[in-house]
Structures are given as structure tokens and as C-alpha cells.
């Protein structure tokens, strides 16, 4: 039971990171209707920017961890958001009214560019960071000596995710930008006729998605203590799986899917085999889609003749 509870905590933390990335996929899919294959690599870039900013701040002699983290989170969100904006501007906007496969291939190409760009710029070796947030709480200690740990970093990840989700939900449901985004999702032409700046709204979607991915990158860096140029691919596929699992286009679905994938992966590693954890995640995706082709919270796609 204790072991189960510990794995539940670990799974929820991992799921929060996946969920933050998945939101970027699902938002872009909802508005533009394309799979942004480069999003996993945007997450990786976010991790690198966070690492570099962190390193620069530490070398200036700053020691207050909360201040460092605040600056790192802001810088990495801003710079990664600019990456997201630039990618949309260069690779996707010219192809927006083209046929469906063109932006997807352009996105796959962009993903190769980003992966190899960071390999060229930062080298192929894994970059480790020393643990920044240490310590934690012992929640429960069983008779046979098994301890349920809740580390501070896990608390930070979950709290940050909840705060960001709250801001994000407020943004989508209460602000002008959110209304524009929902309008563009339903009908771009009509939204444009009613005075919504469609281009700007789509750009902002990419910016917000990239900023959330940057936070996920920072959380990954803090939680696992390393970044490397190839981490975007697997994390990206998992997050996309999460988005599809939750029903692509649905924002709560993305978070739910992220948590589900995180839990599946953790429990599978804990009780069965670590090697097959990805196989388990993908197999469950396939099984869910067979019985619920639109995911957990997705709307059924009705084609009118």
C-alpha cells in the first residue's frame, strides 16, 4: 500500500510535466488543426535556456534560490515563447491554407532543425545540474521500514503546474485573447469578419504553448537534474499521446491525459518492467482509441455531407 502511494505521488509529478507539454499540442491542434511536431523540441529548448540562465545567475554570485528560480522561469518562458513565435511565423503560417500534410511535414522538418541546432550549439553530451531544491517530508513510515517521501521538488512541480493551469484557464475563459482563441477555433473566417485578428491570435497560441513547454522544461531539469538535445522527442511523443488520450483539442483533456500517461508509466515501471514502460503507454493509447476514437474528453467529429 505504501509502495502504491509512493508511486502515485511520482506518477502525478511526472504527469504534471507531460500535461504542461500536452496543453501546447492540444491548443495548436484546436486552432490550426495541425500536429505541431516541433513542440517536444520547444520543450527541450526551454530546458536548455533554463539551464544556461541558471548557470549564468549562479556564476554572478546570486545564492537566494527563490530569486534565481523566479528569474530562470521568467527568462526561459520569454525566450522559449519567442522560439515558438518564430517557428510559427517561418514554418507554419505560409502553409496555413495549404493541404493538411504540408504543415505537418514542415513541422517534422522543424523538429529535426531544433534537435540538431541544440546539438550543434550545446554539444551532444548530457548536461547534469546539481539538485537545486533539496529536502522533503516523510509522510508515513510503515512497520517494515518503507517510507513514503514527498520531496520539496515534487511539491514545487505540482504547485507550479496548478498555478499555471489556473492562470491559463482564466486566460482562456475570461480574457479578450481567450475569447478570440475560442472564436478562431470554431470558425476562422467568421472570427476575422467580426474583427478578430486571426494571425495575432494564432501567434499568441504558439507563444502560450511554448511558454508552458518552457516551464515543463525547467521542471524536468529540476526534477531529473539533466537535459540533453534528444529529450524532446520521447517527451514530445508521450505528451502528444497524452493530448490524444484526453481528446485532442480539449484543454482539461490534455491535463487529464498527461496525468494518465504519467501514472501508467510510473505504475508499469514499478510493478512490471522498466524496459517496457513506453510500450505500455503506447499500447494503452491504442486500446483507448479503439474503444473511444475521440479520446476521453474529445468531441466526436461529425462529418456533414
Amino acid at each position: 500500500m505504501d509502495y502504491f502511494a509512493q508511486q502515485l505521488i511520482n506518477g502525478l509529478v511526472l504527469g504534471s510535466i507531460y500535461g504542461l507539454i500536452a496543453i501546447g499540442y492540444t491548443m495548436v491542434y484546436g486552432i490550426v488543426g495541425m500536429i505541431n511536431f516541433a513542440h517536444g523540441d520547444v520543450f527541450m529548448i526551454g530546458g536548455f535556456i533554463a539551464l544556461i540562465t541558471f548557470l549564468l545567475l549562479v556564476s554572478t554570485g546570486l545564492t537566494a534560490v527563490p530569486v534565481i528560480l523566479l528569474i530562470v522561469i521568467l527568462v526561459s518562458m520569454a525566450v522559449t515563447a519567442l522560439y515558438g513565435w518564430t517557428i510559427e511565423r517561418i514554418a507554419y503560417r505560409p502553409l496555413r491554407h495549404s493541404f493538411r500534410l504540408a504543415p505537418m511535414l514542415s513541422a517534422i522538418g522543424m523538429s529535426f532543425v531544433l534537435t540538431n541546432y541544440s546539438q550543434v550549439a550545446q554539444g551532444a553530451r548530457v548536461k547534469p545540474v546539481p539538485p537545486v531544491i533539496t529536502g522533503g517530508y516523510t509522510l508515513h513510515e510503515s512497520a517494515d521500514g518503507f517510507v513514503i517521501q514527498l520531496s520539496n521538488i515534487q511539491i514545487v512541480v505540482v504547485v507550479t503546474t496548478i498555478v499555471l493551469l489556473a492562470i491559463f484557464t482564466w486566460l482562456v475563459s475570461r480574457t479578450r485573447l481567450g475569447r478570440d482563441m475560442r472564436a478562431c477555433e470554431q470558425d476562422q473566417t467568421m472570427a476575422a469578419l467580426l474583427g478578430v485578428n486571426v494571425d495575432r491570435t494564432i501567434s499568441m497560441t504558439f507563444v502560450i504553448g511554448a511558454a508552458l513547454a518552457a516551464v515543463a522544461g525547467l521542471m524536468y531539469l529540476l526534477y531529473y537534474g539533466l537535459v540533453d538535445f534528444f529529450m524532446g522527442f520521447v517527451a514530445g511523443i508521450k505528451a502528444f499521446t497524452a493530448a490524444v488520450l484526453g481528446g485532442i483539442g480539449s484543454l482539461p483533456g490534455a491535463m487529464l491525459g498527461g496525468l494518465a500517461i504519467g501514472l501508467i508509466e510510473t505504475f508499469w515501471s514499478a510493478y512490471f518492467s522498466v524496459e517496457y514502460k513506453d510500450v505500455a503507454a503506447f499500447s494503452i493509447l491504442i486500446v483507448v482509441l479503439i474503444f473511444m476514437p475521440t479520446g476521453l474528453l474529445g468531441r466526436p467529429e461529425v462529418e456533414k455531407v
Partner: protein
Amino acid sequence: MKAPSINTAKTASGIPALLKTACVNALIALVLFSLMVGVRTEAGSDGQLTYWTRFGEVASLVAAVFGGSIVLELLKQWIGPSGAEKLVPPAVRSGMSFVGSYLAPALLIFTLLVPVIFYDQRYILDLAILVLTYVMLGWGLNVVVGLAGLLDLGYVAFYAVGAYSYALLATNFGWSFWICLPLAGVLAAFWGVLLGFPVLRLRGDYLAIVTLAFGEIIRLVLINWREVTNGSAGISGIPKVSFFGLMTFNVSDPNYIAKVLHIATSSAYYKIFLYYLILGLCLLTAFVTIRLRRLPVGRAWEALREDEIACRSLGINTTTTKLTAFATGAMFGGFAGSFFAARQGFVSPESFVFLESAIILAIVVLGGMGSLVGIAVAAMVMIGGTEALRELDFLKQIFGPDFTPELYRMLLFGMAMVIVMLWKPRGFVGSREPTAFLKERRAVSSSFTKEGHG
């Protein structure tokens, strides 16, 4: 159908506007590159992170963006507003169609003659064999994506199934290539149907992600099922193909080709044989595809791509149609896979990553989805192009001896993929030859054909 263009194209005119755009772009580039390029991090020997700054590189990149955006803006003004239909003079158009109608036979004759011309240039033969392998894979995937309109991002799985079928059957049971080849095709087709069943109800991007997941599952199983596949170390010592069992290409064998035919010993024979083998497999693929397009099942595929609902209303069984498309495409992938295993003599899961699926899909889309000649040309450009990048040694003289062109190969490949998509989203061959027509046979622009919803 094109949605009305909503974005208002701002036509910058005049030098000040031009400079302003360039400055803004340079500023963006500065922010993008300052951290990622300007600060190089590296893990030291004691696990401590160190960094050093590279302001020179950032400055030159920003300058390049500044200059590049000026050139790009000038080019845009020079070519004129994009989207305008360009009038092609009739003489040029008839010339193009003349070239187009003779392109396929000319290419075929050239490919038949390649070993004759380059018989002693091992490198060119190797490259030609590689290109033909991708042509075959492209034509195989074309059945699924180009004809039936089912988006498959995990095609490499069938390639892997074919390769491992031959590798395992040949190393464990000593079966000959000529028995394993059809078996590999059948096994791959079986896996195609196995994948096809669950995804029958899925459409579009859901289909894409499930096929991608399927490809990853196959690869992960190949890595982790060590008892059978030997894990990531792969299987080596896969026997060579024999000349239909009559002659072999191993010097030590009594029926070695040079001994039987009383000619000089040379390793080039095997290369030439492999070349004609893959060429034969390619032609088989092309022949089957062309014939199938004229059969009811091929017409059903194309109808499915155009409109699934109409298809169903006309009484076409979409289940079997989709499954046959998956099985046929997978079978060709399996053939190509066992050829790959025989040629390399070694297979490992490294060869079957998502990148391969993406490359094959890019070849199909660049080739214009459905055009066999277009796909062959696209394979030549993509594979020949990336292989040529390996030979970028002259750049060492420009950037100094520390410059490693290998590193930039995939970066340039990705950029080329984006640029080609921006430039020709419909691929190199923009027209289709319909198989069914009323009165007059006419090539139609591929913007009229649908890509299917899966």
C-alpha cells in the same frame, strides 16, 4: 478548396521599411541565439558544469539574419506578390509536357545502365542501391498514403519486420534469401493487417499518432526482447544473397560466381547483382501499383481517399479496402526490409527510428503523393542530397580544421525539408493522371485531389 486568405499581406516598399524589417529580424535573432549559441555549456570531468561565451558566433549569426532578410525581401519584391497565378507561355508548357512524357522511360533506361557505366565505382553503386531502396519504400508507402489517403507515420515498422524476418530466419535456420523474401513480405503484410484492424475507425491525426506509436512499439520490442533479437547490439553475420541458388558470392564456396563463369575474382559482382535485385524489386512494386490502380481495389483506394462517406454509400466495403491498402504497402516495406538486411549483413533497432518513417513520408509528399516518377525523383534528391552532405570536406578549408560537416548534415536536412515544403507544398510533380476518365484523358492538378482523412 482554399479558404479565403485572411492575412493582410503587408507589402513593404522602400528602403526604410526594408531596413526596419531587417533590424527587427536581427533583433529577434539576437534574443534567440544569445543564450543558446552565445553560452556554451559543458559537463566537466568532475560532473561540474562549466561554460564559456561565444559572442563572435552570435554576432555573425545575427549579421547573417540581417543580410538574409534584406535579400529575401528584395527577392519577394522582385518576384512579385506570392499567390498570383503565373502565366506560362504555351511553348514552355508543351516543352514541359514533352519532357514529362519522356522522363520516366529515360530515367528507367539510365537506371538500367548505371552498373554498366559505373561498374568500378563502388561508392556510386552503393549510393544508387541506397536510393533505390528508398524509391521502393516510397512506392510502398505511396499505396497507403498516396492512393488510399491513410496517413501512416510508422511505416518503418514494416521495414523492420521484413529485415528482422530475413535476419532471424537466415541466421537461425539457414534459410535462403529466396525463401525468406516472400515470407518477409507475408509477415509484414500480416503485421499491416494487425495494425489495420484497430485503426479502422480512426481518422486523420488519430491515425497518424497510432501508427507512430505502433512503429515505436516495434522498435522498443526489438531493443528489449534480447533473447530473440539480441537487443540493441543487433544481429550480425546475415548471409549474402545467392544467385538464385545456382552461384554464390562467397569466394570460399565451390560454386563462387567467378569459378563457375571462369572470370576474374572481384567484389563488384555482388554490388552489381544487388543493384539489379533492388531494381527488380522496385519495378515489381511499380508494376503491381500501376496494375492495382486499374483494378477495382485500386479504384476503391482512390475513391476512399477522395470521399469516405460517398464510398460507403456506393457499397464499397471500406474495411477490406483499408486493410488491403495497409497489407499491400506493408508487404513492399517487408520486401525492402529483407533486401536491406541482406545488403548490410547486419541489422539493429538503430536503423528503424522515427526519422526513417519521416524521411519516407517526406519522399512521398515531395513526390506529389501518387506519382511514381515524382517519388523516384524525390528519393534521388533527398537521399542523394543528404549523402552528398557527407562529402562536405571542402568546407573545412573555409571554416578551419575543427569544422565537422557531419554535425550539420541533419540540421541542413531539416532546413531543406521546411524550405521545400514552403516552396512546393504539393511536391515536385503537381499533376495526376487519372485512371478513370470521361471521353478524354487529361492530367489534373494535384490541388484538386484530396489527401484523405484516414
